[in-house]
């Protein structure tokens, strides 16, 4: 009897959960569907069954050179994340394995730089970039995004490294392993999962960053965020094309995000919720 009640309850909960999930996911689903419609169909009332044309994807490339912002997004997000990792790994390492009294203060201070609102430094950065020729370059944007995400990278790595037991290091040292060997054979295999999660989350954050990427770029270095934002002034019927461009812009990180839910919680709460 109890079993029957609980299974009925499970069915009801399941239905409610699926309905809510559908509503929340609907704007994304509808974007994908609209991208497969003709422009005429796109404004012709709700319909969840598109005629199935891939014309919009072809058009977006032909008319607006979609490939260029896409490449910019890839280069900038991966580039800034890799540079950030190279700078952050030694720092996080040192903090996790030879902590001092000040380690905590340094970590907190790093986090505090993340809280500085972008508009607070928009003016000087814009002028500096203008004067040094970094405005609208992939290099300039990569530098900015590296610095913007560096505190998060250090923090995430730190929370992962902290969990590697120090005794293992000591044991390796007892066995006479040199520092180099210690790093290559003992620590690297244990640190790789943490580094991989950090990489993934930061590529997502850099990919979606929508202040600096829009303000510091124009035609040349504009990544997808700026490219999509340029669709905001409507020129004729364009929803199906906008949907096609949007679908392509969000698909890579959406899929990456699905695989990194757990790391996301950890990374964005600085280890406070696991």
């Amino acid at each position, binding site marked *: 009897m109890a079993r029957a009640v609980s299974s009925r309850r499970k069915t009801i909960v399941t239905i409610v959960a699926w309905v809510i999930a559908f509503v929340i996911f609907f704007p994304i689903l509808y974007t994908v569907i609209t991208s497969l419609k003709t422009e005429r169909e796109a404004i012709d*009332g709700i319909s969840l069954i598109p005629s199935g044309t891939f014309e919009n994807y072809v058009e977006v490339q032909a008319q607006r050179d979609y490939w260029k912002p896409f490449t910019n997004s890839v280069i900038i997000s991966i580039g800034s994340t890799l540079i950030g990792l190279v700078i952050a790994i030694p720092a996080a390492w*040192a903090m996790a394995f030879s902590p001092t009294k000040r380690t905590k203060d340094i970590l907190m201070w790093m986090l505090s730089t993340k809280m500085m609102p972008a508009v607070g430094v928009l003016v*000087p950065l814009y002028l500096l970039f203008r004067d040094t020729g970094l405005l609208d370059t992939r290099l300039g944007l990569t530098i900015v995004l590296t610095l913007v995400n560096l505190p998060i990278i250090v923090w995430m790595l730190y929370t992962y490294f902290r969990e590697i037991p120090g005794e293992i290091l000591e044991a390796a040292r007892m066995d006479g392993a040199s520092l180099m060997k210690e790093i290559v054979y003992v620590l690297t295999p244990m640190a790789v999962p943490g580094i991989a999660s950090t990489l993934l989350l930061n590529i997502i954050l850099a990919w979606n960053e929508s*202040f600096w990427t829009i303000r510091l770029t124009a035609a040349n270095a504009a990544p997808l965020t700026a490219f999509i934002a340029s669709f905001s002034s409507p020129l004729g019927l364009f929803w199906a094309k906008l949907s096609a461009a949007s679908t392509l812009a969000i698909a890579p990180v959406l899929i990456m995000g699905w695989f990194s839910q757990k790391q996301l919680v950890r990374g964005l709460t600085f280890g406070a919720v696991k």
Partner: protein
Amino acid sequence: MATRQTRTLARFMMAPSVVLLLIWMIVPLAMTLWFSFQNYNLLMPANRSFAGFFNYIYFYTDPAFFQSIANTLAIVLGVLAITVIGGILLALLLDQPIFGQGIVRILIISPFFVMPPVAALVWKNMIMHPGYGVFADISRFLGLRPIDWFAQYPLLSIIIIVAWQWLPFATLILLTALQSLDEEQKEAAEMDGAGAVSRFIYIILPHLARAITVVILIETIFLLAVYAEILVTTNGGPGYASTNLAFLVYRTALLSYDIGGASAGGVIAVVLANIVALFLMRAVGKNLDR
């Protein structure tokens, strides 16, 4: 355990990160502060002079300033209310046994990964558009007049879009926290005859307290800086109805070319964010001591 040698090494390993962040924090901020005391307009770069507190007074007396502060707070508080309450409810729901839980989770978390310009444009054109949007279709189906969201309720529209983006975040964090709650504790409470409501108030809510704090504080940092969603939907209008502080500073700097005024606004934004940050640092800092 740490010898002097390893300590020196540790310092070298930390140096690049610390130095870079130090430069990144101090140089632009010092420049902003400097510019905020200058008469400096990019249209008349030759007329640069010391302005004293003029820029601050100008910014302060601009009616748009107070409206932008009010709008900033409305966005932060509105989105927080929706996402925290909604997040708790959704987390409680998803913590139950469900068929296809993995897929439901994936669907619900998805909006968080949508870049802000896409989220805003999809909502603006396909969901909230008074002529062709889904909401308009539903209104007509119910025999009601469609609402012109961005003209009639610009701020509310932005709050809805931003809340859609952040609800998944709150849900995911709260669900993770909920799942770490001891199953036995819940069962024991149930056996003692505690009802669902008292179980929620006395066991679940206290357990979620830290996660809720973290959600509130992290969201606040991002919500204070909402920008792209405003840019592509209302562009701050009508008038200043949906201009927040971040957007006002951008407008002053890059549309009016008023470097001095924008810098003063930037300084105010930094001060505001720091007040909030102070609380966040405390909460996260406590957690480090564990």
